[in-house]
């Protein structure tokens, strides 16, 4: 990373230095530590909503049988069988 280009992005909404507007191609660099663009609040909120929706659907899927078998084994161990 070039010296003097360090931008401390806060968890959500750190302000990049203005000069970094012209270095946005570093966002495409896989190894770059900083992404000198910050999505606005509305965009981040929308992404958050989509991600939460996607993930909650995964979490609410039924537990597959192969894990239920494992649960039974744990249960019987707890009962000292």
């Amino acid at each position: 990373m070039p010296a003097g280009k360090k931008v401390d992005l806060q968890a959500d909404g750190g302000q990049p230095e203005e000069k970094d507007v012209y270095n946005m191609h570093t966002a495409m660099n896989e190894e770059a530590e900083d992404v000198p663009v910050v999505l606005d609040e509305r965009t981040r909120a929308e992404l958050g909503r989509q991600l939460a929706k996607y993930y909650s659907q995964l979490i609410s899927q039924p537990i597959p049988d192969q894990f239920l078998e494992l649960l039974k084994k744990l249960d019987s161990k707890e009962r000292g069988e």
Partner: protein
Amino acid sequence: MSEPANRSFNTALVAAMPNLRAFAISLCGNSHTANDLVQETLAKALANCDRFKEGTNFKAWLFTILRNTYFSDFRRGRREVADSDGLAAARLSTHPEQHGHMDMLDFKRLLDQLSDDQREALILVGAEGFSYDETAEICGCAVGTIKSRVNRARLKLAELMGIATFEDIGPELPTQAVMKRASV
């Protein structure tokens, strides 16, 4: 491990299952491989239960085992495995932005376009609610690296969804800004 500790370990393991599976599906891209990954993770957790330090974050410990197992044993061939749910095969004929809302499959396809590192960081922080510090520990890298991956993941998703607007910069895509810069 004492009997009560053993009991709470098992209870916590069971409670974490849906989350482990959701994270595994996000990494693997299909539920068949994800189930094997979770199974392997649970087996390792049980075999190494005495290595868990009481008082530390149990869920983070499980997620660490899962992601390490994925990157060491499951990553290869990720794209080749058929999706047992047929999700990957169910191609939509329109882009997400064309019908104004996105269903689960749309969003999954967008997530699949992120790198493994970016997707992992985004899910852990954005969906699982781990802190950047916890996520850095789970992934075995620096906090700054995680922040960077999450930011890049969000940026790419927003661009793919066509909703990327930026603070203090205006609704330009980075590629447009780069082109603009090049023409100055």
